C-alpha cells in the first residue's frame, strides 16, 4: 500500500500557543481514515493546514508525493484535495445546482472572452458543468431539488449539497469535518452508506474528523488520535480502543459519552 497523504512534523503556532506539535501521520490510498481527539485537540487545525487556510509553522504535507506546502487553498483543491466545513458554508441564497456547479469551477476553463463571445467550446463546457452537477446531486440523493434555494433545504439536505459540491471537484482525497454533526438517526445511517459509496464506487480516499465515536469505529479502517496537538495513538478501531493512552486521554475520561 502507498500513502496518498503524508504529513511529517507538522507544527502550527498561534502566537505563544502551540496548536500542533510535530505531527506525523499518513493516509493510505483507498482507505477510510479518521482523525479523532477531545475538543480542542487540534483536529480542525490539521484540516485547515492541509487545505491551505492556515500556514503551518513547520513540517511537510504531500499529496501523492506532491508538496502542498505554501499553496493557496484553490491550488490545493485543484491538486485533488476537497473539504466540507464543520459549520455549513453553502452559498445559501444561490440555488442547489449553482452550489454544486461551484465545485466544477476548478475543472473547467472558459474565461472572460469566451463568455462574452459565447464560443461553441464555452457553451459545450457550460452544458457539461450543469450535467456533472446534476449527476452529483443524484449521487447524494438530491434529485429534484436542483432549482431550490440552498438555504431553504433541511439541515441534513444542506449537508448533502456540501458533499455534492466537494465531490464535484473530482478529489482524490475528501476531508469531512464532523459530517455527522446535527444529523438525525436516519440521516446518520445514510451518511455511513454515503461515505462507503464514495470510497467503494468512486475510489476516493476519505479522511474524517468526527465526535460520534460509534460512527468512527463503524466506518474507519485507520484512526489517528490527537490530544493537545500531538499524536497519541494510531491503528484500527480495535487497537485504538484498547490503547491505554487513548483511554486515559479520551475514552476513559468520558466513556459514557463515547459509547
Amino acid at each position: 500500500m502507498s500513502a496518498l497523504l503524508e504529513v511529517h512534523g507538522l507544527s502550527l503556532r498561534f502566537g505563544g500557543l502551540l496548536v500542533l506539535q510535530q505531527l506525523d501521520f499518513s493516509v493510505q490510498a483507498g482507505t477510510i481514515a479518521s482523525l479523532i481527539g477531545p475538543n480542542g485537540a487540534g483536529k480542525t487545525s490539521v484540516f485547515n493546514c492541509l487545505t491551505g487556510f492556515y500556514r503551518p509553522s513547520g513540517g511537510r504535507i504531500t499529496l501523492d508525493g506532491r508538496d502542498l506546502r505554501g499553496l493557496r487553498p484553490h491550488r490545493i483543491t485543484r491538486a485533488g484535495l476537497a473539504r466540507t466545513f464543520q459549520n455549513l458554508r453553502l452559498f445559501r441564497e444561490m440555488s442547489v445546482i449553482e452550489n454544486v456547479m461551484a465545485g466544477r469551477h476548478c475543472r473547467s476553463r472558459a474565461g472572460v472572452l469566451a463568455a462574452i463571445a459565447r464560443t461553441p467550446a464555452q457553451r459545450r463546457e457550460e452544458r457539461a458543468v450543469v450535467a456533472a452537477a446534476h449527476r452529483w446531486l443524484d449521487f447524494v440523493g438530491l434529485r429534484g431539488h436542483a432549482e431550490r434555494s440552498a438555504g431553504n433545504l433541511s439541515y441534513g439536505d444542506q449537508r448533502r449539497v456540501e458533499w455534492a459540491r466537494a465531490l464535484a471537484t473530482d478529489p482524490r482525497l475528501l476531508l469531512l469535518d464532523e459530517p455527522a454533526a446535527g444529523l438525525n438517526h436516519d440521516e446518520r445511517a445514510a451518511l455511513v452508506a454515503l461515505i462507503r459509496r464514495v470510497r467503494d464506487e468512486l475510489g476516493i480516499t476519505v479522511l474524517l474528523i468526527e465526535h460520534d465515536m460509534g460512527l468512527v469505529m463503524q466506518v474507519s479502517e485507520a484512526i489517528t488520535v490527537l490530544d493537545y496537538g500531538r499524536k497519541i495513538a494510531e491503528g484500527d478501531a480495535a487497537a485504538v480502543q484498547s490503547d491505554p493512552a487513548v483511554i486515559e486521554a479520551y475514552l476513559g475520561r468520558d466513556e459514557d459519552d463515547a459509547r
Partner: protein
Amino acid sequence: MTATLRRAAPAILFVVLLLVPLVASDYQLEVLTNAWLYVVLCLGLNVVVGYAGLLDLGYAAFFAVGAYTTGILTARFGVDFWATIPAAIAVACVAGIVIGGPTLRLRSDYLAIVTLGFGEMVRIAARNLRITGGASGLVGIDRPHLFGLKIERIGQFYIIFLLLAALAWVVSARLQFSRIGRAWRYVRHDEDAAEAMGINRVAVKLAAYMIGAVFAAIAGCFYAAKMTAISPETFSFSQSVLILLGVVLGGMGKIPGVALGALVLAIFPEVFRDIGSMRMLVFAIVLLLMMLFRPHGLWPERRH
C-alpha cells in the same frame, strides 16, 4: 405567448429606441445620449460592485483614462479616433492591474480607500500635467469618421451611444450567466468556501475590476469624441459617486435595474430643470425615500 414576448421585448425596445432621432428634438437627443453614456458606465461599475461585491469609489478615474487617451492621441498626435480605443483599453488594463493587483489580495474594505485615492490622483494629475491641458482641459479632440462620414450631429451620437449601451447590456448578461459570473457570486457570498472550491479569489476579483475599467474607458473614448473638449472636473469624486448611485438605485447586480438607475440619474435633473437648484434637493429626498422603502433598488427581486 408571454415567454416569446418577453424574449422579443428587448429587441423591439431597441428598434423603437433606434427610431427616436426621427421625432425627438436636439435637446431631447442630447439628454438621452447622456443617459446611454450613464447606462454604459453604470453597467460597467455593476460588474465590479454588483457582481463581484467590490466597493469602488474611484470609478470615474477609468472614465478619465479613456477620455484623456483619446483626447491626447487625437488632439496632440493626430491619431485616428478608432485607433485610440485599443490604446485606451490597454491603458485601463494596466491601471487596473496596478491598482487592483496589490489591493485585491486584502479584504474588500481596503479597495474602497485605494480606489478613492486613485480617483483623486487621476483627476489631480490631469489638472496639473501639460499634456492633459491642465485645469482648463483639453480642446480640439477629433470627431470620428465612419465609412467616410464624419460623425458630428447629435442624432448620430445618439445612435452610437445607444449601440454602446446595448453592447454593454449584452456583455453584462453573458458574463453574469457564465463560469466567471458564477465565480463572482461565490466569492461575494463566501470567499473561504469559494477558495475551497478551487476558485482563485484574487484573479476572479481582478477580472471584475478590469472589465469594469474597460467599460468605463470605452465610454470615455466616445465621450471625448462627442464633447471635443474635456476637463478634469468631469472626472471628480462626485462623478464616481453619481455612477455608484445609479448602480445602487436600480438594484446592484440586476442589469435592467442598473440601466433604469442610470436613466433616472441622467433624466431626472433635466425633467426638474424648472425648479432650479431645488432639483438636487428633491433628488436627494427621492433617494432617501428609495433607500427606506426599496433598499434593494427599483427593480423587483427575483424570488426562488
